[in-house]
């Protein structure tokens, strides 16, 4: 048996007890081999791009509730978008006219809209609200680690001791600062880069040397941190340069667009093969207390420019990814610390508010509008009420996109949040196992080598569909050659061409779905 192949396809330790060389793997906990197994399983080519809109985006002028237009108009007459220029999404809502790029993505089924995103007892301070969105805390909870930081720590518990196969940064922030979102339980999980070329040039000449561990004092801890940053800078510089060199942008991005500048680089790094899973980019200026719109033409002005920049940048990014052949691997999500007050103020602006719409884009996104247009007749002290908790979104992405198992999801999100079906054909690996005990298929032998067999009860003449999925949820094989069953017969599958690894078997038989796990070791 080729151990390398074996490792690459291994099941998560949490889901299966497994015997290796007579020893249960749980006994090897903490052992390097064990970590390698976890890490090998955790390989994925899926990427998440988080787009932070700093300042609090006025959702009500981003997604206009045309189904309540006169009330909308009366509540913010000096900044209300004219009904005739709204880009209609459906009878109830439409986009700000500058978001033509987003409209195109909606029309091509690559964008989802989630209305009324917030959390219970929302906070109106930029800093507290941003911390809440980044850490996933409740309004009265103070967490020191971020959602993505905890996710990455769960996936890479030995970081920064990076094991053989994973040489790339876990997450990258395209700026000169790293945000709280990436703070793990013990350290920052992301690196910051702005420009791959300069980065590579500047980190040469630093030798971290081999000095003794610093003293266990305040001074020593600062020294330790700074040396770590030096090591990280060198460690990733060549990988980042390699990836950036491999892929060139295939389309022309808009100029004078700070978001486009960042997404351009992200596209190259993704297409260039960097295994980094999460990128964060940002666009600032959304704190529109005044001059949100033009005085005479409300479809223009500061907010219009920002939404236009967002829309154009994302559209270009999606086009570029498609041209680079990486479209299916990437989803993106916009977020902002809060929406804004329903009623405008006298300065052609809006004060801080509460819930707002969130956009999730990608070719694998479920292109649906979730929730209703914001209810302007049912406000909470002048602010919009919540329809979805933002933590549901993160939870859904972690589960459906990154195939995070339930236990880990709980560790990362700290609570159970109701899933929003945000991804098409999600990679949820254990749902069917955990939920359908009575419909389990038991294969024998298991682990299997060249064949396995299971019993199948059929009530009709229809031929069952037998599908084999990898742990990532990717369809690996559809079996076509097997003996046609009559009632209580056994189905035998030839597994010689399937690589060693851990798989899920799904049998669709009339209206029933049966599932089972199978491990293949050649």
């Amino acid at each position, binding site marked *: 048996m080729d151990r390398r192949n074996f490792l690459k396809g291994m099941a998560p330790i949490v889901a299966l007890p497994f015997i290796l060389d007579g020893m249960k793997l749980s006994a090897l906990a903490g052992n390097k081999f064990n970590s390698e197994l976890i890490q090998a399983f955790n390989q994925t080519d899926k990427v998440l791009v988080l787009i932070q809109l700093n300042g609090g985006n006025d959702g009500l002028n981003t997604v206009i509730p045309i189904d309540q237009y006169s009330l909308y108009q009366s509540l913010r007459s000096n900044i209300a978008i004219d009904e005739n220029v709204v880009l209609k999404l459906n009878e109830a809502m439409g986009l700000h006219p500058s978001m033509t790029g987003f409209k195109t993505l909606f029309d091509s089924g690559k964008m989802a809209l989630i209305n009324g995103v917030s959390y219970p007892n929302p*906070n109106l301070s930029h800093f507290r609200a941003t911390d809440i969105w980044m850490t996933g805390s409740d309004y009265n909870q103070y967490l020191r680690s971020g959602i993505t930081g905890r996710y990455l720590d769960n996936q890479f518990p030995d970081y920064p001791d990076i094991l053989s196969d994973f040489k790339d940064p876990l997450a990258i922030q395209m700026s000169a*600062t790293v945000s*709280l979102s990436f703070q793990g339980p013990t350290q920052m999980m992301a690196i910051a880069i*702005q420009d791959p070329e300069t980065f590579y040039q*500047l*980190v040469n000449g630093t030798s971290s040397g*081999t*000095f003794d561990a610093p003293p266990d004092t305040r001074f020593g801890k*600062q020294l330790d941190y700074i040396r770590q940053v030096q090591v990280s800078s060198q460690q990733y510089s060549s990988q980042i340069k390699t990836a950036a060199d491999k892929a060139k942008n295939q389309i022309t991005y808009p100029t004078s667009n700070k978001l486009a500048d960042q997404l351009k680089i992200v596209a190259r790094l993704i297409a260039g093969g960097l295994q980094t899973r999460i990128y964060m980019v940002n666009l600032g200026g959304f704190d529109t207390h005044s001059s949100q719109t033009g005085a005479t033409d409300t479809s223009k002005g500061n907010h219009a420019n920002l939404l236009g920049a967002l829309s154009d940048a994302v559209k270009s990014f999606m086009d570029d990814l498609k041209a680079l052949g990486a479209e299916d691997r990437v989803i993106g999500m916009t977020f902002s610390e809060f929406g804004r007050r329903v009623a405008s103020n006298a300065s052609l602006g809006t004060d801080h508010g509460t819930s707002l719409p969130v956009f999730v884009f990608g070719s694998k996104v479920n292109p649906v509008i979730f929730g209703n247009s914001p209810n302007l007749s049912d406000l909470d002290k002048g602010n919009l009420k919540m329809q979805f908790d933002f933590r549901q979104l993160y939870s859904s992405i972690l589960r459906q996109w990154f195939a995070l198992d339930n236990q880990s999801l709980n560790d990362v999100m700290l609570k159970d949040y109701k899933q929003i079906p945000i991804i098409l054909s999600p990679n949820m690996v254990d749902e069917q196992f955990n939920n359908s005990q009575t419909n389990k298929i038991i294969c024998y032998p298991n682990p299997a080598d060249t064949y396995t067999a299971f019993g199948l009860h059929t009530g009709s003449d229809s031929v069952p569909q037998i599908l084999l999925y990898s742990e990532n949820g990717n369809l690996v094989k559809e079996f076509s050659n097997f003996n046609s069953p009559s009632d209580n017969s056994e189905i035998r599958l030839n597994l010689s061409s399937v690589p060693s690894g851990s798989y899920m078997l799904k049998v669709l038989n009339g209206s029933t779905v049966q599932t089972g796990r199978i491990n293949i070791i050649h």
Partner: protein
Amino acid sequence: MERRDFFTTLNPLDSSGDELKSSSGLSFVFSGEGKKDSPRILSGLEKYTGQWSSLQARHLLSRACFGGKPEEISNLVSNGLDGSITSIFGDVPNPAPPIDPTNGNSWVSLQYDSMNDYKYSQYLKSWWMGLIINSNPTILEKMTLFWHGHFVTEYNTVRDARYMYSQNELFRQNALGNVKTLVKEISKNPAMLRYLNGNTNVVGKPNENYGRELLELFTIGKGIEIEPGNYTNYTEDDVKAAAKVLTGWQDDKANIVGIFNQKLHDTNDKKFSSAFNNTVIKGRTGSNAGTDELNDLVEMIFAQKETARFLIRKLYHWYIFYEIDEITETNFIEPLADMLINGNYEIKPVLESMLSSAHFFESNNISVHIKNPVDFIAQTVRTFGLPVPDISKDYAAYYTLNQQLMNYSLVFQMNLFDPPDVAGWKAYYQVPDFYQLWLNTVTLPYRNGFTDQLLNIKPFNKSFIIDIIGLVQKRVSDPSDATIIVTELAEFMFILPLTQQELTYLVDNIFLPGLPLYEWTSEWNKYKQNPNDTKTKSLIISQLTQLVRFMFRMAEFQLH
């Protein structure tokens, strides 16, 4: 590693409130019991009576000021603690305002000039960088910078360089004065009126922006959120009431001043919550209504002790460290808050006390503070005596150089007059990383690139180079001895001494890799015999540069 232990003992997911007494907008962190490894700081506000040497002098100079030139350090050493505090808190004449270096004229009182305003803002930034680097070592500029990061406005938003100069002057004039006065003045300052929309906050349509930040960031700060909209120290209704108190102000572009328009003022009574003892600020009419109600508002906020504590904690972060445990809170923060209140909010005696205390000079507080970008640049320039042009002889060159240095500060993420947002620079408040946010895989390589350039490696300014031979001749007792060079340069560059292992490594692997020590001695002596021989000279320079380049890139150089 300490941080992991810290989290396991504290159970960070526990929302019981034991852990943090205020929201993430503020910063103090109880390190909790059971942290056995790191020695805790037990000393408090009592005056420091320990050894007074170069180490203490440099510690004081780098924290209270922007580092000292070698002569300045010697002066402080001879003057002792008291003498040093006196000189650091000495009076400073008002500096000359910024000029336009293309013609030598000041622009700060001219009419608003939309064509040139951006350029003026650049000159403004260069001017301040110049002041920071070239002033005698007093606390004034460091304290002015503190206020700038506290009462934030951004040129990016205000878009009037004269306005930005006016608030900088306000901070400088009140830097060591009365805090209540400063708050009252900044509330009427035209840059602030513009930045936080005070100038469109009118009766009937209040704009909460300034009222909110006044409470949340500038004075009392938030406490635990005991229920939605109630942050213990104030409530959302207090924000709304404060906004109404502040209605009616406008900025006067011609006179660069805030003016009160009584017609735009809300004359109703303003009721505050139990957090402010249910104070009612009487609504007034007339031309003094704005100032009178503002004064009432400030007095009301400052009557709460938490306001004093909030400010002291911010000063603690600025001058000392980001972590405040219960012992420090009790022994240091609380008595300083008392001192501030009892002195009617005069800040100078409080700072003098803080910076001459045993706590401040505690060994566990020395060299623990990552240099902010301006610290990093200014201290390097001052320590190494880099040649800044004389403004009286060549103001154009002076401004050009300071502009270049300002550009580096920007790249290192500290853009004077343009902090990232109204909460100021994240390093001073963002839990849990604080100062560590200054250094990441972008900014640390940039800092390394900067120091390379000062060593004539692709310099940004060919006249702004360290004279490395001159440095060694001046600062090293016996430059023919490689070990002495390394040891004494380390004393010169780092506050704490390097370990023996580090010193040996520098000599054996960096300065003279694989060579015996006498090789250097013979090289040096050869140079001394023939100082004009270009070949020998460039060899000496190249070797010394290699050494200092590495030393600049050592982690110790980022700390003060």
